[in-house]
């Protein structure tokens, strides 16, 4: 069986008529953690949104294959149901829909199976405890009145509950204090196994202090300019992106 999970080929993407991605190539195998790093405006978030086919981003060229299937032009929900999850930089607030009900509904859509409420709530409570989340948040409206840190943890919680094959974490570490970053790293470790993969998108290296990764890609001006191992992140930490611009 192939180990290949995600394959992006020569991807060009425009946002509001502006060319953002200029020929991205990326391969992610099962069992791997990848990091895309880059300065602001380099196209990191565009990459994540393009994978999920956000209609605000227009694919001009290239293809995305996931788990042996061409997902380039699938709808976002179809891509999600095929096993890709994205943690948002700015998660949306949904008044009147509790975290429990939302996740139960989403889990049902993703798996196509009925969700047993008792087991589900137990599982949810356990994950929340491990992520140092207040169990009362379970009954609160999704993200409404949550602090920045609570929203990010809630994204990680969703990742654990929905259990995708590929989790894309878009700037999940940004704006978090050291403890919260550790919690996020812990969540990633809990999630990770040899059959799934993680793609972390970030502009800083803090999360890499508490998490071991397989590949680091440097994205500058819409292109991956260098790929390396964890030490590449350390190099960026010391020298910045200057030499790649």
């Amino acid at each position, binding site marked *: 069986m192939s180990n290949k999970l995600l394959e992006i080929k020569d991807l060009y993407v425009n946002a509001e008529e502006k060319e953002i991605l200029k020929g991205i190539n990326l391969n992610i195998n099962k069992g791997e953690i990848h990091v895309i790093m880059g300065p602001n405006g380099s196209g990191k978030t565009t990459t994540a949104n393009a994978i*999920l086919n*956000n*209609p*605000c981003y227009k694919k001009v060229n290239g293809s995305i294959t996931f788990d042996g299937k061409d997902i380039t032009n699938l*709808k*976002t*929900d179809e*891509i*999600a*149901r095929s096993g890709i*999850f*994205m943690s*948002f930089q700015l*998660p*949306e607030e*949904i*008044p*009147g*829909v509790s975290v429990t009900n*939302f996740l139960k*509904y*989403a889990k*049902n*859509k*993703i798996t196509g199976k*009925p969700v047993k409420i008792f087991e589900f709530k137990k599982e949810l409570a356990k994950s929340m405890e491990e992520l140092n989340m207040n169990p009362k948040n379970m009954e609160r*409206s999704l993200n409404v009145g949550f602090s920045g840190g609570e929203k990010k943890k809630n994204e990680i919680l*969703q990742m654990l509950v*929905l259990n995708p094959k590929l989790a894309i974490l878009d700037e999940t570490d940004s704006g978090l204090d050291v403890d919260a970053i550790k919690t996020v790293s812990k969540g990633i470790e809990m999630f990770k196994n040899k059959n799934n993969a993680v793609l972390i998108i970030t502009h800083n290296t803090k999360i890499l202090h508490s998490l071991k990764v397989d590949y680091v890609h440097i994205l500058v001006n819409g292109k991956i300019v260098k790929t390396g191992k964890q030490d590449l992140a350390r190099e960026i930490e010391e020298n910045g992106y200057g030499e790649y611009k």
Partner: protein
Amino acid sequence: MSKTKLDEINRNIYNIKNKDEYDFKIKKGLTPEIIEEISKQKDDPKWMREFRLRALEVYNKLELPTWGPDLSELDMNEIATYVRPKTSLSTSWEDVPEDIKNTFDKLGIPEAEKESLAGVGAQYDSEVVYHSMKEELIKQGVIYTDMESAVKKYPELVKEHFMKCVPVHDHKFVALHGAVWSGGSFVYVPKGVKVDIPLQSYFRLNSPESGQFEHTLIIVDEGASLHFIEGCSAPKYNKVNLHAGCVELYVKDNAYLRYSTIENWSKNMLNLNTKKAIVGKNAKMDWVSGSFGSKISMLYPMSILNGEGAKSEYTGISFAGGGQNLDNGFKVIHNAKNTSSVVNAKSISKNGGKCTYRSLVRINENAGGSKSSVSCESLMLDDISISDTIPVNDIRTDDVEFSHEASIGKISDKTIFYLMSRGLSEEDAKAMIVRGFAYPISKELPVEYAVEMNNLINLELEGAIG
């Protein structure tokens, strides 16, 4: 997609039309002779017959309202005012005729009954055909009956309260109502009696060109409490249908009344319903209202806070689709010291539907120490729908706390994308956002009504996407 109970309800159940089986249908148009005829048919006492005739005079003098939605399509002469079903009053479900039963079955009435709700007064066309009540309520002295019976059996109580809260001079349709009213519920809860299970009544229209003018009169005496629920849905017709009901609620000193209603009229209906409550000293009146369907709706429930320390809370939602103009809101008069009111109104419009929130908060000179807080939120599901807010705040004393917040929003593409990234289709995502928006109202309803409201929301959203 999983099939839940919510998805299984079909729009058709709200559009069932039985054979038009009536044994008596009055001549079109309104004359004193017709009113006499109605009165005779109903075997009214003399005072009621005279009341009807006086109301007709007022009706003929008053003009149509010059504000709000355009009602010029209404031709009163076209609307037969009185249709009586083939059955007379029944006391047990077994006695209810089969085709009427079928309609009610599809509306879930027997189920509600099975769930040990206190009593069901179901109005079919203009008269109550089914009525039952738990023994314990009778023992407590609670009266729950149809309005015609109340006129005959409890003349003093009815005379003292009937159209005193909503006088016939209020507006043209109230005057019309006074002249031709038919059917409805009467509830009296004696002093100090707490009715701990909700009483409920269903009614619907079922005759082409017939208006419905049901009268609800509820008296909750001193220190008593009651939750009354009125739910209604109507089949669809091509001709204009008018609903001009009247609800009068008396909440005496230290009493509590919660009046919940989901109105779901067919899309050709003009819903011009008048509802008012008079609230006594330290008494509390809660309104929970869901307004769906109808072509035009003008619906402004009103609390008159007449006793010191009286309170009122209104929680309501309107949902207007294409071709609908829902002009809804709430009115409150603070007419005594230390009274308070809270208004939480929401509206949803889609496919070019129009929702207007029209409200009045009046705090009189004599109502020092009073508080009022109003919040209204609108959600528009597309660019062609309309939402408007027309609040009137008439505050005649300085010693008040008053706040008014209004917001109009749209569903953002970002939110849709977020939910779709969790595996929800675009339609599921919109429905979830709308249900969440409506949740503060649905959580105030008994669970089976909350389910029905979610059904209605789902039905309204169907086909709206794209």
